[in-house]
């Protein structure tokens, strides 16, 4: 059961990304999340930890799932919550991010949770305001809370992450989840690979210490976990892949493909799923899918982060 004040602290006062985050900090977040996970099983799922603190969810890009998960985490910690949503294009025309943030800060906000289409927006914000910044996804850069809930879910299932073989499948180049997953998994000692068409694998990704597969069967053969990313259908227009049908044929995860290996394969997906494109329905809903646990764990992990950052100093 979490205390009102943690005896241990994270190295950084913000959560901007997982790149460079020390293993002990990842562990601290996961351990703290575990006690909040217990809170979520109680009849009264609320603790007074962040009473009196104000958190704004600054969403410049619509993401109902992530925002709801944060909002639930914030309310369960008894924080006051303000939601601010804006279309990036309208913000671009008028008020700048800096102005928006400064205005919001005048309202005495303690924590800003930001989702933005531009990579580095949370980093920029951390330089122009005094509030604590939590990155809820910035462009194709990082999505640290998603990666932490992925790590939590894997640890819950396997007991430990070290030595686990995890393959991230799909559009690595445009994904904010892939990079955060890679940093988090590497910090915890997992073996990480990526798989997708070469057009969707960013240059020099190997230098992060990950293997690259272009053949899905090779990736499956050496993996314990497949973390399947959403393929954005509009990428087809950008010549990143020729047709949906071909993509499904060569990179879609189906029961038939998984049956070729004679052992259970754990399936994860950050959602929302394009059913029967990157993931067939029977795999998404199958017994080895952790997709729904990811959603539940997401709230606990976000509670842990807000608690650790919000009660420091």
């Amino acid at each position, binding site marked *: 059961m979490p205390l009102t004040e943690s005896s241990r602290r994270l190295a950084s006062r913000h959560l901007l990304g997982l*790149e460079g985050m020390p293993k002990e900090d990842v562990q601290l977040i996961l351990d703290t999340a575990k006690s909040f996970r217990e809170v979520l099983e109680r009849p009264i799922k609320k603790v007074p930890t962040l009473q009196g603190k104000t958190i704004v969810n600054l969403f410049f890009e619509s993401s109902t799932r992530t925002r709801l998960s944060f909002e639930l985490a914030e309310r369960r910690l008894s924080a006051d919550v303000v939601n601010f949503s804006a279309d990036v294009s309208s913000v*671009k025309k008028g008020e*700048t*991010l*800096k102005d928006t943030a400064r205005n919001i800060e005048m309202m005495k906000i303690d924590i800003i949770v930001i989702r*933005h*289409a*531009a*990579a*580095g*927006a949370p*980093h*920029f914000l951390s330089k*122009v305001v005094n509030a604590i910044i939590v990155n809820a996804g*910035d*462009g*194709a*850069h*990082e999505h640290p809370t998603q990666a932490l809930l992925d790590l939590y879910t894997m640890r819950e299932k396997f007991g430990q992450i070290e030595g686990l073989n995890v393959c991230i499948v799909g559009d690595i180049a445009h994904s*904010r989840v892939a*990079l955060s997953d890679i940093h988090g998994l590497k910090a915890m000692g997992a073996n990480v690979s990526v798989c997708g068409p070469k057009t969707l694998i*960013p*240059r*020099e*990704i190997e*230098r*992060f210490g990950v293997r690259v597969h272009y053949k899905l069967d090779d990736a499956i053969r050496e993996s314990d976990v497949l973390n399947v990313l959403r393929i954005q259908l509009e990428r087809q227009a950008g010549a990143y892949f020729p047709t949906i049908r071909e993509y499904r044929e060569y990179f879609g995860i189906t029961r038939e493909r998984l049956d070729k290996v004679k052992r259970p394969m754990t399936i994860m997906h950050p959602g929302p799923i394009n059913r029967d494109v990157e993931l067939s329905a029977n795999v998404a809903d199958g017994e080895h899918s952790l997709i729904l646990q990811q959603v539940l764990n997401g709230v606990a992990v976000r509670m842990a982060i807000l608690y650790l950052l919000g009660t420091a100093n």
Partner: protein
Amino acid sequence: MNILFKNAHLIDPALNVDSVADIHIVHGIIQKIGRVSFAKGAEVYDLAEKIVAPGFVDMHVHLREPGYEYKETIETGCRAAASGGFTAVCCMPNTNPAIDDASVVKNILERARSVLGGIVDVYPIAAVTKGREGKELAPMMELADAGAVGFTDDGAPVEQAEIMRRALEYASMIGKPIIQHAEDLTLTKGGAMNEGFISTGLGLPGMPQVAEEVMVARDIRMVEYIGAPYHVAHISTRGTVELVRSTKAKKLPVTCEVTPHHFTLTDEAVRSFDTNTKMNPPLRTQEDIEAIKEGLRDGTIDVIATDHAPHSQDEKEVEFAFAPFGIVGLETAIGLAITELVELKVLTLSQLIEKFSINPRKILKLSSAKIAEGERANLTIVDPKSEWVVDIRQFKSKSKNSPFHGRTLRGKAFAVINNNQLLFSD
């Protein structure tokens, strides 16, 4: 004007001058070089340890006027140039209206004459195409007659091969170069930085090195076919250095320039998401820097030019992807060049002066600046040993968008003399 500089180290590579001497200047003309112990009525300055060179030219400057006077004006740009040690700048045509009509050229020339008594010669570079739209040729002969010294659509490449062909044909008649901003736009669409390990880690869309190289390669083949003077602006990759080197070996009229930031910084600098590390072409890799230094050393790269690109603070204080490309460069160029090239023994001071003064004048057929008796005094005076810290608040430029704020440099402009005017840098 009646000035006596004592004990100056005179370097004029074009005249094989490299010696310590006194230099007496009256009414903007070099009267005497040698030992001058007394000159009646002269202001006397001791220039021991200082270098006196033919006036430096920055052949790639965005003065922003007309149209973007909130970023820079001809006046503030010229003040920045003089303070940074330049007696001449070439201004780029991506203004509003673009420099695609003789009237714009004349207007710029006239306005420049009144700044600081005309101490900085402003040479307009005109657009290759009308409105820089890449569709129809601008009136290149009229523009040249009005005073344009070269042609470019800078900010954008001349994209269509057919337009480039016609432009080269006109350039060969006129005898003034086409200056290409080499970039295949289909390969850089949406890009914000160099494509590679760093862009992958930052999740920023990349601009690959080949986007520059395929354009240079195409153009070089056409230069070979047509035989016109062609200059590649702000080269940034190892591949471009190699292309230009092999082309020069064939004695084709191809020249190129590099900016101080492209031999100083790599894409590592973008990790901070500092929008003052965002420019086009983007900061590349250490491997590219090594190749650029070799290109400077062996003469493949003719010129150092800044691509001085002022932007207001509001424009740059935004998300990285939304920020405009470019940084100011006039007031840090000499310091960066001496620190990164002379101190690190890539170039001698004499070679540096060729890249800042002799070669750009040759490429653009500007009147030469000579350190000789009877010549007009068009001089840049440099203190090569002075150590200083870059402070953007001291910039004369209207804009402060520099990634070098706080950096310690060795070597600084000390003064400039041109058109019978003398200006000290501080």
